C-alpha cells in the first residue's frame, strides 16, 4: 500500500479500533512500527503502512517485531509493536527482560485478544502479562478511547520509562465507531546513551534493575488511583456496583444504565482506593471482566466480597443480554424477561470456513486423503482447514511452527503400533519462517524420519494475503530480497536429493513424490509452488464445466473439496455385483471456478472440460 494523505485534524471518522490505534500511533510521532499479521490485530500495521513519516514492517514473528521496536526505543524513538494474543506468548521472552531495562523512546505494545476465538487456537487473557511483567495495561472500550489511550500510552511510557500494553479485544479491533482525530506531532529521537548497567542485562546488572522495576510499579499504583482513566460513575440505582473495563463496560452500561460503575481505563495496576469507594455505594460488588477472573481474585484477596465468574460466563464474549439476566439472578429478583423471540429455529447446517476455489492446498489435502498409513502434524494457517471436510488430513495442530517439533516427537516417541506409520509435517511458507526453521533444524540434527510438506503460496493467506520474505515484497508491496527455500532448507541440514519442488495442481506428480519420500527413512522436504488466490501472482485460468451427459455421478470431483463444485442430484444404484453405491451428479459454478484443473484429474469419465462451443472440446492443463 502506498502512503496516502491522512485525513486532516478535527475530522470525524468512522474507524475500527485498529484504525484508530494506527492513527494515534502516527500522530504520536512514532518512527518505527513492526508486527506480524494475526486476527484480530492485522489491520493496525496494515493501516500504519499507509501513513507517511514512519518506518513500518511485517516482521517474521512477534518476538522479532518487539525486538525491532525495542531497538528503536533504545535510540530514543517512539516505537510500536502489534500482535494478537498468542503472539505475545512468542514475544514474551523479549518483554520480560525489556521490562527491566525500561523504555527510552515511548514504546507501546498493542495486543489483541481473540475473545470468542474467531480464528485462534486458544482464548487467553493478555491482562495477565501486565501483572507478570509489571507493566501498565490500558483497556479502551471503543474506537475513540482506543485513539485517546494510544496517544496517552506514549506519554505514560516516557514518563515512567516503561513499555505499555494496550489490550484490545476483537470487539474493539473490529467495531467501527466515530473518532475525532488530531494531527501528527514530531518526536525527534534523543539518541542512544550508552549505559551498560541499563541495557546489558547480565545477571549482575539485572539484579540491580529489579528493585527499580518494583518501585516503578508502586508509582504506577498511585497513578492508577489518581488517573481520570479510572473513572467512578456514581449512578442512582444502588442495588449493585460494577467494576469493569474494555468492551464489558459498554455491556454493563447498556444493561444497567443507572448503576454505580468503576470503569478501568488503566486496568493494571488496580486502583484499590477507588474500588473501596465504589464498594461503599452498594451492597453487592460485581466484577465484569472478559475471560479470566483476574481482578475478581485480586479483590477477594484484598478482602472485598466480590462476585464475578461465580455467575458470569468465563468463556467467550460478554454482551448486555448475558450480563443483565445473570446479575438479576444474583440479586434474587425475578429473572429479567427474555426479549420476545421468534420460536426457536431448527438446527441449521454449519457453514465452516473452507479453502478457496482453486486454493493450491486443495490438491495437497486431496492427495493426503488418498494415502494410507500416515500420521500428519499440522500447523497454523489456511492449510489448517485441511483438518476439515472432505480431507480430514491433519492429526494435530498446537501452535505456530509446532508442526516440526511435534513431528519429531511423534517419530521418536512412537511405539509398536505406530512402527510402520509414516510421519508427515505440513507447514506454510510464512509459518516456516515465523517459527518452523528452528524445528526443522532440530529434526535434521537429531536424524528424524519425517516428510515435510512446505506449502509455499507466497503469502500469509489466512489473514488476507500479507507479504513475506518468500514473495520478495515488503509491507508496502515494494521489491525486497526473496528467500530461496531450497537453499535455506539445505542449509538447515536436509540433503539436496531429498528436497523436491512440485506443482500442487499436478496430482499424479504430487502423489508419487509424497509416496516415494515417505518410504525413505530420512528427512525430506516437498515444496509446493503455486500462489494463494488472494495475491497478485495468482492468475485464473479458463473455467471448467461438467458435461451433464457424460457425468456418471462418481462423485470423485466432490472429494477434491472445491467450493465451486455443486451436487445437482443424488442417486443410489445397485451394481451388477450386488453392491449399492451412492451417486452424486455435479455442476461447476462458472463464476467461482478459476480453472485450476484439480477436479478434472480424478474425474473417471472425463466429463469435466473447458467451456467450449458444442462439439468442440478443449482440455488445457494450466501451465
Amino acid at each position, binding site marked *: 500500500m502506498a502512503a496516502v494523505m491522512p485525513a486532516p485534524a478535527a475530522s470525524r471518522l468512522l474507524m475500527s479500533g485498529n484504525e484508530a490505534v494506527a492513527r494515534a500511533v502516527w500522530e504520536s510521532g512514532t518512527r518505527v512500527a513492526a508486527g506480524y499479521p494475526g486476527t484480530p490485530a492485522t489491520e493496525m500495521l496494515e493501516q500504519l503502512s499507509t501513513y507517511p513519516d514512519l518506518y513500518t514492517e511485517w516482521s517474521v514473528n512477534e518476538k522479532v517485531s518487539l525486538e525491532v521496536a525495542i531497538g528503536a526505543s533504545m535510540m530514543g524513538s517512539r516505537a510500536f509493536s502489534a500482535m494478537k494474543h498468542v503472539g505475545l506468548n512468542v514475544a514474551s521472552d523479549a518483554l520480560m527482560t525489556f521490562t527491566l531495562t525500561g523504555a527510552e523512546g515511548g514504546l507501546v505494545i498493542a495486543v489483541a485478544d481473540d475473545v470468542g476465538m*474467531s480464528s485462534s487456537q486458544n482464548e487467553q487473557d493478555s491482562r495477565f502479562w501486565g501483572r507478570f511483567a509489571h507493566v501498565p495495561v490500558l483497556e479502551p472500550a471503543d474506537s475513540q478511547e482506543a485513539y485517546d489511550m494510544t496517544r496517552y500510552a506514549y506519554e505514560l511510557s516516557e514518563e515512567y520509562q516503561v513499555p505499555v500494553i494496550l489490550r484490545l479485544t476483537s*470487539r474493539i479491533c473490529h467495531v467501527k465507531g466515530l473518532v475525532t482525530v488530531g494531527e501528527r506531532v514530531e518526536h525527534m529521537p534523543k539518541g542512544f546513551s550508552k549505559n551498560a548497567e541499563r541495557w546489558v542485562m547480565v545477571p549482575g546488572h539485572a539484579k540491580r534493575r529489579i528493585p527499580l522495576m518494583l518501585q516503578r510499579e508502586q508509582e504506577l499504583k498511585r497513578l492508577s488511583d489518581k488517573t481520570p482513566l479510572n473513572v467512578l460513575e456514581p449512578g442512582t440505582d444502588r442495588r449493585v456496583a460494577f467494576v469493569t473495563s474494555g*468492551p464489558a463496560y459498554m455491556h454493563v452500561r447498556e444493561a444497567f444504565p443507572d448503576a454505580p460503575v468503576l470503569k478501568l481505563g488503566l486496568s493494571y495496576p488496580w486502583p484499590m482506593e477507588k474500588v473501596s469507594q465504589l464498594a461503599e455505594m452498594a451492597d453487592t460488588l460485581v466484577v465484569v471482566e472478559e475471560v479470566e477472573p483476574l481482578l475478581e481474585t485480586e479483590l477477594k484477596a484484598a478482602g472485598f466480597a466480590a462476585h464475578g465468574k461465580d455467575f458470569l460466563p468465563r468463556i467467550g464474549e460478554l454482551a*448486555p443480554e448475558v450480563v443483565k439476566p445473570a446479575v438479576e439472578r444474583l440479586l434474587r429478583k425475578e429473572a429479567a424477561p427474555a426479549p420476545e423471540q*421468534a420460536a426457536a429455529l431448527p438446527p*441449521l447446517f*454449519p457453514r465452516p*470456513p473452507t479453502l478457496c476455489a482453486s486454493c493450491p492446498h486443495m490438491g495437497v489435502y486431496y492427495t493426503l486423503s488418498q494415502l494410507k498409513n500416515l500420521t500428519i502434524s499440522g500447523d497454523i494457517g489456511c492449510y489448517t482447514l485441511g483438518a476439515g*471436510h472432505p480431507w480430514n488430513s491433519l492429526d494435530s495442530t498446537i501452535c505456530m511452527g509446532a508442526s516440526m517439533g511435534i513431528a519429531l516427537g511423534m517419530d521418536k516417541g512412537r511405539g509398536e503400533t505406530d512402527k510402520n506409520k509414516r510421519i508427515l509435517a505440513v507447514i506454510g511458507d510464512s509459518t516456516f519462517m515465523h517459527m518452523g526453521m528452528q524445528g526443522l533444524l532440530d529434526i535434521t540434527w537429531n536424524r528424524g524420519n519425517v516428510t515435510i510438506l512446505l506449502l509455499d503460496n507466497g503469502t500469509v493467506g*489466512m489473514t488476507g494475503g500479507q507479504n513475506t520474505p518468500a514473495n520478495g515484497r515488503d509491507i508496502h508491496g515494494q521489491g525486497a530480497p526473496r528467500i530461496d527455500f531450497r537453499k535455506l532448507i539445505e542449509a538447515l541440514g536436509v540433503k539436496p536429493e531429498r528436497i523436491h519442488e512440485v506443482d500442487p495442481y499436478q496430482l499424479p506428480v504430487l502423489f508419487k513424490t509424497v509416496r516415494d519420500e515417505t518410504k525413505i527413512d530420512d528427512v525430506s522436504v516437498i515444496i509446493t509452488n503455486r500462489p494463494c488466490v488472494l495475491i497478485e501472482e495468482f492468475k485464473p485460468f479458463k473455467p471448467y464445466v461438467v458435461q451433464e451427459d457424460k457425468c456418471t455421478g462418481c462423485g470423485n470431483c466432490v472429494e477434491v473439496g472445491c467450493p465451486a463444485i455443486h451436487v445437482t442430484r443424488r442417486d443410489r444404484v445397485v451394481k451388477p455385483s450386488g453392491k449399492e453405491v451412492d451417486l452424486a451428479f455435479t455442476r461447476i459454478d462458472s463464476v467461482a471456478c478459476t480453472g485450476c484443473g484439480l477436479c478434472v484429474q480424478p474425474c473417471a469419465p472425463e466429463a469435466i472440460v473447458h467451456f467450449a462451443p458444442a462439439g468442440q472440446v478443449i482440455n488445457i492443463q494450466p501451465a
Partner: protein
Amino acid sequence: MPNTTNILVCGIGGQGVMTATEILSEAAIAEGHDVKKTEVAGMSQRGGVVTSHLRFGAKVLSPQIAPGTADVLLGFEAAEALRWAHYLKPGAMALVNDARLVPPVVELGLFKYPDDPIGEMKSRGVRTVSFDAATIARDLGDLRLGNTVMLGAIADQLPFSAEVLLDCIVKRFARKGEKVVEANRKAFAAGRAAAAKASVPA
C-alpha cells in the same frame, strides 16, 4: 436503549455484507447519529458465516445487537436469513435475497440445506420479503450490483429518507464515472421496487 435503530445484515464471506453495512452507516452518520458497526465473522474470507451489526441513535453503547431486538434484517442468502431470524423484534421485517449458496459440507451429503428457508421463516411468523437480487443485478448487466440492489430493498425501512442512502452510494461510486453511478442508481431503484412489490400481500 430506546431510540437506537438496530440493523442486522447477514450472508456469507465475500458477498459484500460488510460493504453494504459500511454504506448504511455512512447514511446514519450523514443524518447526525452516533454509530457503531461490528462484524461477527470467523475467517470470513473463506466462505464462512458473516453477520454485520449496525446500531445508530443519539448515543450507542454496546456494538452488538441482542437477539430479539433487531429492527430490520437484511439477508444476502436465504438460509443465512433463516439462521439469524431470531434476532428480529417481534413483527419486524426481514428483507431477503432468495439466492441459495450451498457450502461444501452440504454438497458432501453431511448436512442438509433446508428445502424452503423463506417458507420456514414465514411459517415462524417473520414478516419476510424475498426477491432474487442476483437475477436483478445480472439483468442490469453486472452481478456486482447485487449489493446495491440489497440496499435499495432496505431503503424504505430506515428512519431516514431513501435519498440519504442513495446519496451515499452515489458518492462511493462517483470516482468510477457516470456510467457506474447510473448503473447503481438503477440497481438501487430496482431493489427498492422489488421489495415494495414483494411486500404487497398476494
